[in-house]
């Protein structure tokens, strides 16, 4: 016995597990990248320019965000757009389940995998390089969930506005690289020049990188960062709901 909703979630989880590319980038790659960066000795040294934090400490939060960027910018839109193109959504409209439930199931599966990847990153940082765990875990979790919500909304917008897989791919790439930049993949946000740091913090991943780091240090995350993420999530969700086509 299973309810329709659990059946579709289980189904989407199983289908996700059959996509080795998505599994690798979302689940494994962030931790691998962290481990690679941690091998650079100077990254492990406390840096007075970074308020005494080491580069690798900052990168833990960056790779935590990296998994959700892959998910929202690339993997989830890929699933949803192929479902629309293959008329799976249309097919589900004729069943008691309805097509919105498959989107919900996708969000649940992606959120679960991304969260697992985040725990893995925290664990790898802690065990391999002795990076600190968040001193304000509740704040950390709150910021994390807001960041995740904003990335899921990004995925929904790409799925909604891209008419086909080719356009989606272009959008995905553009979103992915700009979000990776604002998350601090190329240069941690805290190490950016002040002006750039300010600009970046008005984007969801930039705000998330700042707020996560504050929670790690045991500070209360700035409201402005939470506001930025919430506003992006709300605006993107609205666009997605307005623009989404089932067929």
């Amino acid at each position, binding site marked *: 016995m*299973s*309810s*329709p909703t659990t*059946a*579709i979630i289980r*189904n989407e989880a*199983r*289908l996700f597990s*059959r*996509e080795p590319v998505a599994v690798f980038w979302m689940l494994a790659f962030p931790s691998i990248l962290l481990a690679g960066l941690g091998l650079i000795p100077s990254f492990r040294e406390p840096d007075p320019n970074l308020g005494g934090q080491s580069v690798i400490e900052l990168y833990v939060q960056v790779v935590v965000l990296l998994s959700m960027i892959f998910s929202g910018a690339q993997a989830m839109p890929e699933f949803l757009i*192929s*479902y629309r193109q*293959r*008329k*799976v959504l*249309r*097919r589900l*409209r*004729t*069943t*008691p*389940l*309805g097509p919105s439930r498959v989107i919900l199931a996708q969000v649940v599966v992606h959120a679960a995998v991304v969260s697992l990847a985040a725990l893995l990153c925290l664990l790898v940082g802690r065990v391999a390089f002795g990076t600190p765990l968040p001193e304000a875990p509740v704040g950390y979790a709150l910021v994390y969930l807001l960041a995740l919500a904003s990335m899921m909304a990004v995925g929904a917008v790409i799925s909604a506005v891209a008419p086909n897989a080719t356009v989606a791919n272009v959008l995905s790439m553009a979103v992915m690289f700009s979000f990776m930049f604002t998350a601090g993949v190329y240069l941690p946000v805290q190490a950016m020049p002040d002006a750039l740091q300010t600009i970046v913090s008005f984007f969801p991943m930039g705000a998330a990188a700042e707020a996560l780091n504050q929670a790690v240090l045991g500070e209360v995350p700035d409201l402005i960062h939470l506001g930025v993420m919430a506003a992006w999530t709300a605006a993107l969700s609205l666009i997605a709901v307005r623009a989404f086509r089932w067929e």
Partner: protein
Amino acid sequence: MHTTTAAVEVTALHKRYGEKVAVQDVSFTVRQGEVFGILGPNGAGKTTTVEAIAGLRRGDAGRVRVHGIDPWTDRAALTKVLGIQLQEAQLPEKITVSEAFELWSALYDDPVPWPGLADNLGLGEHVDRRFGKLSGGQQQRLSIGLALVGNPRVAVLDELSTGLDPRARREVWQIVRDLRTRGVTVLLVTHAMDEAQELCDRIAIVQHGRIAALDTPDALIRATSSATVTTFRAEVAVDLQALRELATVSEVRSEVGRIVVQGTEDAAVQVIDELHRQGVRPRDLRVVEGNLDTAYLDLTATATATAAAAESTDDVEEIR
């Protein structure tokens, strides 16, 4: 025996896409347990009509009821009584046959046991195969199976046998007959005449968004100018023009040594009388019933000739 309760009622359905009128004043009633065919060329409005019945589209005007349910406002209730196999709808590439059946079974309150269904559809040996690895015919059969797994009271099958080989086609036809035996109402959308003639209790022929004719296959054939086809050989020259002028004859042609006469049910007798008058003794005389092909072309010919001769050339080609 069929009850007379209506399973599907369509009343004065209209639908246009921008300037193009897709369905115009279509009305019909499908009785419970009936196999009802909707036949017509591509673009005639068949799919739009069934999409309106399945709640996938709203008509611009008119009314649809499926067992009393309004599909345009109450899709949740509709999906419990109506199962549909959609043209071209696919499944995720990597879902297996059994997983798809399991998932679909979980969506309904009272599903039929799917392994039996899979066997009937010839999918029993492929339950572990992924959708993307199935042949087109197998995908089609899986799609039919998913339409039926919820134990619907009304099954809509759109282009049921397109892309199936002759054997698979026969198997799928048997499934429709089984549904009929179980009292399930079937709406069969097709442009295959033989399929409609073989399976349907009644057929609506749709042309340019309107119902051109609606009757049993036999009655449709009888009503046309080509209810019978009379063929014979003659050893002497026959005055074909005289045959053509007979009141009951619609068409006369010469085909590889045989003369072929299409006409109403009384045409054969008149032809023989006329041949007798000409002093011709027909040999190898055969009189066969016309088929739905000729009936269909006959019924749609007038509209085609006047309304959209150029536009529907492709459609007619495809039907042959």
